């Protein structure tokens, strides 16, 4: 069941919601078992159209932050507001609605090997109940955006790692999200492919989509010259408007 746009994230009707930010973390704390700190008292505001890199060493809480945004994890303290929707205590059945409005890109691609590139992108629209006609129109457009219009019938194992990640980005864009969360999207790629993916993310950002890039790739962060939030042991230790990789 698709949540009505007026009550979902990035709602067009404002009401009493804070529409000036896409992502708001208010004193968010997430503690895993055995008192393992994911995030502790983290407050972040990400505005529409921003390109934000979240950096930090392994275990700093980067992936926890990404998982909290897509409601894969729940907070222990604090509040999370995504596009005006307080998802702190989001109900289980509301999670699909949230995820259909946030594009997600992961390091390990998460493509279905037995489906073609077209089918992989179409899959995101199929599960959301889009019509077949609409899928046939939208998917080639998405694959064209990521430069794979010539390879729509190929299977994931027939294209390079960089191309696979581009398919994932195309899939993430399928629902025309206002927010794209990319968790280590270049982690499995060589330098050239990594640069291409970052260029693609920049291009998407230029079209108005807010991008949250979780990475520990120093070169990429320094090259971007965009906002950088640095995490360390679950705490925000730096938030620079046009920053560099600090650690």
């Amino acid at each position, binding site marked *: 069941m698709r949540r009505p746009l007026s009550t979902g994230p990035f709602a067009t009707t404002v009401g009493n919601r804070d529409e000036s930010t896409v992502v708001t973390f208010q004193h968010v704390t997430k503690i895993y078992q055995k008192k393992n700190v994911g995030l502790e008292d983290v407050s972040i505001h990400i505005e529409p159209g921003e390109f934000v890199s979240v950096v930090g060493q392994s275990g700093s809480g980067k992936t926890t932050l990404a998982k909290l945004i897509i409601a894969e994890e729940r907070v222990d303290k604090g509040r999370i507001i995504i596009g005006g929707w307080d998802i702190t205590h989001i109900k289980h059945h509301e999670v*699909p609605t949230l*995820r259909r409005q946030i594009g*997600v890109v992961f390091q390990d691609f*998460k493509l*279905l090997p037995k489906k073609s590139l077209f089918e992989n992108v179409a*899959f995101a629209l199929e*599960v*959301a*109940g889009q*019509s077949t006609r609409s899928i046939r129109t939208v998917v080639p457009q998405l694959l064209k955006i990521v430069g794979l219009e010539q390879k729509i019938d190929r299977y994931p194992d027939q294209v390079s790692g960089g191309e696979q990640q581009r398919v994932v980005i195309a899939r993430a864009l399928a629902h025309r999200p206002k927010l794209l969360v990319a968790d280590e999207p270049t982690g499995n790629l060589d330098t050239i492919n990594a640069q291409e993916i970052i260029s693609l993310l920049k291009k998407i950002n230029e079209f108005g989509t807010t991008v949250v890039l979780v990475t520990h790739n120093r070169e990429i962060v320094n090259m971007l010259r965009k906002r950088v939030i640095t995490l360390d042991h679950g705490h925000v230790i730096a938030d620079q408007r046009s920053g560099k990789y600090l650690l």
Partner: protein
Amino acid sequence: MVTLGRMIVFGVQTFWRNIWLSLVTVLIVTLNLFLMSVVLGLNVVGQQTLTAVKERVNLSVYFTATTSEDRVETVRQELLARPEVESVDLISRAERLELLRRSQGQSNLINAAIEALGENPLGAGLIVTAKTLDGYNAIARFLQSDRYETIIEDTGREFETNQTVINRLTLIVGRIQGASLWLTLLFGLIAVLMVFNAIRVTIYAHREEIGIMKLVGASDAFVRGPFVVTSLLYGLLASLFTTIIFVPILTITNPFFSQFFAGYDVNILGYVQQHLWQILGLEVVVGCGLSVLSSLFAIGRYLRV
């Protein structure tokens, strides 16, 4: 509708992509459904036999030769007024004599004896049929009362013999029913476990796809639906196969049953042919019901959405 259609397509794809697992599951569910059908069939046969035997039971009342027809008719009306009585048929004195002659094969000895007596020595008779088997005892007690002692020759002896046979048959049929209930439950449980395991393996094989479905915003129903569709296919195919193999096997074995139940109104093949659609419907309901039930258990246990 689009979502439902896609759930069905994904369910069929899941069935097809795991074709060997699907075939083995369908085969074993078919086997169990078949055994359940055989057990339930035996139950039906037992019931039919019991009904056929019960239908043959009646209570014969014979009056003395001196009892007038009016008196016999009065007793008949009194019997018909009793709540346990279904029907009372009158056998006249002449009819009784004719029956006796026929039963003795027009014996010369009988004819000679009757001629010597100079008149029909037999009284009229009544054939009493009760609504239930239990009713015969009450009717017999009613006819053994003092007011009928002088006019009724013999009552209930034949019924008592039948009663013993029926009691034994009822006991056997009851035991068959009890055993068939347990066997049906056992075969049903095996079918449930088979589908449960098949769905569990399928969920494991599709864990990556399930994870991606959830990531891209598939609803719980959309993630779970295809597995329910797959299990429905198991049940549907198994019930169809069961019905398809059940009828020819019954056709082949029917002469044996006909011979066994000679003289009784028990026709198993006829019963199946007459109720084929109901039997198929029952197979589908049971097969699909068990499959869906077990898939829901497996989904609840192994598919965290």
